[in-house]
């Protein structure tokens, strides 16, 4: 009998471990994405990126935007396209308008395509993942400052930066009620 109970406890422990493992998959996935650029999340910055003499090569960066669930936002890039040199800092902006008559909370997430080059696209200043309060009928300019790493592989000639804007007023409202 004792042996059976021991097997039972061991297997139960394993089951609980596997439940925990399913949550461990979340950070594992994050790391995996960072290595492979799987979901196009952009890289983090460090100070060695800026170089005195930018390399003599040009990369086209296109900007585009999305709004989720038809939220009452008008959201678009200030410039549709820039030609940039890796190793130089550039600034551009997106405009966000609240077309409703009540204040809303907005948040955006960025995505670089092709995903495999995402790690070379570093944002110095960015409005991503910050909660923007935007009042009724207000228009805001949201700045993006970025630099493309000089190590960007030479076959990469064109990048696309997309921002997706979410209305999180309700989601957070729910949280506050709790």
């Amino acid at each position, binding site marked *: 009998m004792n042996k059976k109970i021991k097997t039972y406890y061991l297997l139960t422990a394993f089951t609980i471990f596997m439940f925990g493992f399913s949550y461990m998959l979340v950070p594992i996935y994050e790391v995996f994405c960072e290595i492979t650029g799987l979901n196009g999340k952009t890289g983090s910055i460090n100070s060695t990126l800026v170089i005195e003499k930018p390399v003599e090569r040009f990369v086209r960066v296109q900007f*585009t935007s*999305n709004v989720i669930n038809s939220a009452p936002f008008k959201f678009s890039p200030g410039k*549709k*396209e820039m030609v940039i040199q890796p190793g130089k800092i550039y600034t551009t902006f997106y405009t966000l308008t609240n077309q409703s008559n009540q204040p809303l909370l907005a948040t955006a997430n960025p995505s670089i*395509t092709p995903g495999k080059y995402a790690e070379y696209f570093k944002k110095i200043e960015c409005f991503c993942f910050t909660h923007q309060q935007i009042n009724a009928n207000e228009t805001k300019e949201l700045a993006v400052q970025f630099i493309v790493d000089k190590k960007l592989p030479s076959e990469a*000639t*064109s990048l696309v930066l997309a921002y997706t804007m979410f209305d999180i007023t309700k989601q957070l409202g729910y949280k506050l009620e709790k």
Partner: protein
Amino acid sequence: MRNFIVFLLSTIPTLALGDWEVNLPRGVTPTSVLAYDLHMLIFYITVIIGIGVFGVMFYSIIHHRKSKGVVPANFHENTKIEIVWTVIPFLILVGMAIPATQALILMEDTSEAEVTLKVTGYQWMWKYEYLEDNVSFLSRIDSESNKARKLNSGVDVSNVKNYLLEVDNPIVLPVNAKIRLLLTAGDVIHAWWVPELGGKKDAVPGFVNEMWFNINKPGIYRGQCAELCGKDHAFMPIVVKAVSKAEYEKWVMNQQNNNKIANKK
């Protein structure tokens, strides 16, 4: 059981014709042709293996039966043959993996595209934006199909032209140009698929996917959403009109003028 095999074998010539009705379309892009050729290659390999394996099995079923007075043999092990039938399939698989990997590398190379078309999936329509040309529009199921598809609409759908595969605003694209699609979605996951252009890709909200094709024949190509996206998933078709470059330029000009007048979404 034997009848079934005869039935199976009799389907092979039909399959090999590459008819649209029973097989993958060969398609009009280098990637769709690649996919088609690989599909047929693997299909023939499996047919040959199938004939061999089932052949031996049915030979045994016919000849090694008790009613024929067969006394069962005694063997139940043979390491040599076990190794053979492990290694040979492995080698066949390696043979299949090589062209498949080459095809994959080609399909994933989206660089140096001439036209970038951003596709956004919504419940239940598509939005198309030509990033370079500042043209954008929504594309929904055509109204005739939309009426006919309602529950108990009373419409004989076989009289509806291109039932469920017609849209109000088709995409127009030039032939012999590398087209890059950027795919994303505005609510849930969708997938953009036109069989004759080869392959499909998911449109995921908050992220951007990409794919490419190069259409080598003018024509109208139809497809639909391929990822369950809610109740009207079946009713968001895709129509691509492939035209010459000159015609395409003209169309873009027209659209730009129209866009100035109408407000875009």
